[in-house]
């Protein structure tokens, strides 16, 4: 540890470097000029200039989720700060580690309704893991180190640090952190190690189970690569079937036979039936989200539930569990495997075989099947071609998505073998997330193939970042599955609102190919299945950011589907099913959310 006198701006740059930050996403403004001046005079800290602050946050999210590091955002006061709010809520809901630095009007003007003043710590109090308003330049270094520590540890999340302009100009003392960047915090001490007695209790439950099921979530991915390896090891070791949430995809190899596919509202038939019928559910790093559980009173009625989570508030929030284990997934799994091995434990082989047979039966329904056409491009087919042709490039491939039908099809039909290759807005469901997020992923992985899957609705929510992709030569491939609709809205209107397509038709669409060309990017279009492969290959071969307008079947729906408020075993498999089904969702049957 050493101390040094510096200006606030210099302290910020030094603290970020000491935290191992190499890039940040931002946009300058009045109050931040001293900091941008200091940035200008240094090397080593890269700044990506975005076109809109919301995109800066999503880019930092993409960076964070694809690397496991904390993403950094730098924006000015007032509108710059308020534009980050959607991104911060998104990061909060999906547990993405971020530090967002916002400029603030000088301390003496705070509260005076000064030009570009906004009470951003007040606004973001509920949507950040923690936030700070720096009042003394001598606290600045400590606060920044704390911010990164809080963002990264425990259940990760966004932290905002609001810095008034006078603090940037003032001179204060900066203390270099010790070798470890860990901060001894007075009150914040996340529990990492799981309780041994509970772990042993969980093992007893698993070894005596007849129909056990792993329910893995984003917490496994957040815990790190080691956690994913341990998870896969434990699943293989026990022979128990495994399903993952939308956020968990990649935590277990998608091509493995023990993987039942994603669960939840648009999960596979076998995963959801297994969730309903299992007798021991092992939830690891997931939070019983309503998109997973469906109707709570009918959720997996006969199972004992084990729940491993680092966040104590996740326990018993939606579903009361039998064995809660608070701790970091990697630590808990390491212990579990240790005891499992020491006990030479095994799941009852005969019962497990029966269970697998039942699952095979469900699997034979092939619930992700769709009717291929040689006239019109089915969105599922487009995704399968993107997946297979990406694989052929031999490049490490990262996918991001926007929100809606395309997102669910991507989750169903892309296949993730490794963690941190799948970036999607799960909790908040933020349209406009995927395109800028892909930008952040490509910044972190310049040589990788970064594919953004978009819908024609959501792409238009942050398309201005095409300019940023061009200026930093980030060759993101953005496939727009274009059905001229807000597709998921249209699907619900078809199913639950008498096919009245209120405000879900997008008639005022720009020519996406020309739009790409206007920015100097490559624009491509496929309108028939025959054109698809050529266009995808052309996109993958290009060194330019590429927008690919894929005209898909406008009325294709996402199936399977568990209608909101229904149970897992009331899943709708396809259009015929949907017309016959009682649970096909009359609006009167309850509130649809």
């Amino acid at each position, binding site marked *: 540890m050493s101390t040094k006198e510096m200006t606030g701006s210099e302290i910020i740059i030094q603290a970020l470097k000491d935290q191992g930050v190499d890039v940040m996403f931002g946009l300058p403004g009045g109050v931040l000029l001293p900091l941008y001046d200091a940035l200008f005079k240094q090397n080593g800290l890269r700044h990506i200039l975005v076109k809109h602050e919301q995109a800066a946050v999503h880019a930092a999210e993409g960076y964070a989720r694809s690397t496991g590091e904390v993403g950094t955002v730098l924006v000015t006061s007032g509108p710059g700060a308020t534009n980050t709010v959607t991104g911060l809520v998104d990061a909060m809901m999906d547990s993405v580690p971020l530090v967002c630095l916002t400029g603030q009007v000088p301390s003496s003007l705070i509260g005076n309704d000064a030009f570009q003043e906004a009470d951003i710590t007040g606004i973001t109090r509920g949507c950040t893991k923690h936030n700070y308003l720096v009042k003394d330049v001598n606290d600045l270094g400590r606060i920044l180190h704390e911010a990164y520590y809080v963002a990264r540890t425990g259940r990760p999340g966004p932290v905002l640090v609001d810095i008034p302009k006078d603090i940037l100009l003032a001179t204060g003392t900066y203390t270099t952190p010790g070798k470890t960047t860990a901060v001894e915090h*007075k*009150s914040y001490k996340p529990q990492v190690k799981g309780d041994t007695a509970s772990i042993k209790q969980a093992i007893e439950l698993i070894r005596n189970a007849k129909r056990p099921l792993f329910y893995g979530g984003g917490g496994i991915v957040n815990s790190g690569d080691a956690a994913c390896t341990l998870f896969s090891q434990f699943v293989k070791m026990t022979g128990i079937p495994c399903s993952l949430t939308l956020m968990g995809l990649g935590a277990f190899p998608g091509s493995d036979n023990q993987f039942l596919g994603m669960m939840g509202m648009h999960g596979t038939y076998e995963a959801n039936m297994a969730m309903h019928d299992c007798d021991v559910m092992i939830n690891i790093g997931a939070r019983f989200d309503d998109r997973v559980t469906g109707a709570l009173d009918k959720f997996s009625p006969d199972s004992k539930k084990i729940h491993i989570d680092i966040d104590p508030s996740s326990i018993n929030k939606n579903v*009361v569990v039998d064995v809660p284990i608070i701790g970091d997934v990697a630590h808990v799994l390491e212990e579990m495997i240790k005891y499992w091995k020491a006990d030479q434990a095994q799941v009852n082989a005969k019962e497990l075989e029966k269970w697998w047979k039942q699952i095979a039966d469900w699997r034979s329904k092939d619930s992700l099947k769709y009717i291929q056409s040689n006239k019109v491009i089915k969105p599922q087919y487009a995704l399968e071609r993107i997946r297979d042709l990406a694989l052929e490039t031999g490049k490490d491939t990262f996918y991001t998505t926007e929100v809606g039908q395309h997102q669910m099809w991507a989750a169903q039909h892309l296949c993730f073998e490794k963690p941190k290759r799948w970036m999607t807005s799960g909790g908040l469901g933020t349209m406009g997330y995927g395109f800028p997020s892909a930008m952040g992923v490509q910044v972190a992985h310049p040589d990788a193939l970064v594919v953004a899957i978009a819908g024609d609705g959501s792409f238009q929510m942050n398309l201005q970042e095409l300019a940023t992709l061009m200026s930093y030569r980030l060759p993101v491939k953005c496939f727009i599955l274009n059905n001229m609709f807000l597709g998921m809205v249209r699907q619900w209107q078809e199913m639950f609102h008498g096919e009245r397509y209120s405000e879900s038709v997008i008639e005022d669409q720009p020519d996406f190919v020309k739009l790409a060309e206007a920015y100097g990017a490559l624009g491509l279009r496929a309108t028939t299945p025959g054109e698809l492969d050529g266009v995808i290959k052309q996109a993958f071969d290009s060194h330019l950011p590429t927008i690919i307008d894929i005209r898909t079947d406008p009325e294709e729906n996402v199936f399977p589907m568990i209608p909101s408020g229904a149970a897992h075993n009331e899943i709708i498999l396809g259009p015929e099913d949907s017309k016959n089904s009682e649970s096909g969702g009359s609006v009167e049957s309850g509130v649809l959310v």
Partner: protein
Amino acid sequence: MTNKDKDDILRHTISVLVDNESGVLARVIGLFSGRGYNIESLTVAETDHVENLSKITIVTTGTRQVIEQIKAQLDRLVPVRRVVDLTIDGPSVEREMALVKVAGEGEHRVEALRIADIFRARVIDSSNSSFVFEVFGKAGKVDAFIKLMEPLGLVDVSRTGVVAISRGATGL
């Protein structure tokens, strides 16, 4: 646990030790309003001037599951050091203070003083036509006192809200 027990609304007194930094109370209150929890009463003051710690006492109601959530969510806030449920974590005592203004003349004044005496309330301000009483006790006692003052010319009430502490030798 039967279904009925599960849905019973319980009243709990929760003691929260926090770093007394700016915005901490807003975080706690925002948590309650944002997640739809109830606050019956909330008191806060700095209790450790050296370490800058404040203690917040919250009286809240909810089902057992909601009360558990409230405690977990409070504990998750970064400046929160400890959360103790005084209702279930061993015996505790709680007190509230109220200032009660009663205006009246003649027999009403005498009766007000008589009742105040029974409740061991003290007069801390008086004029020809009014008294201000201070009354201490459990929230129920304060309620009762105020109710009795109503027909005698109750004009205004200020209450502190409940403060509570565990019985015995150990601290929070």
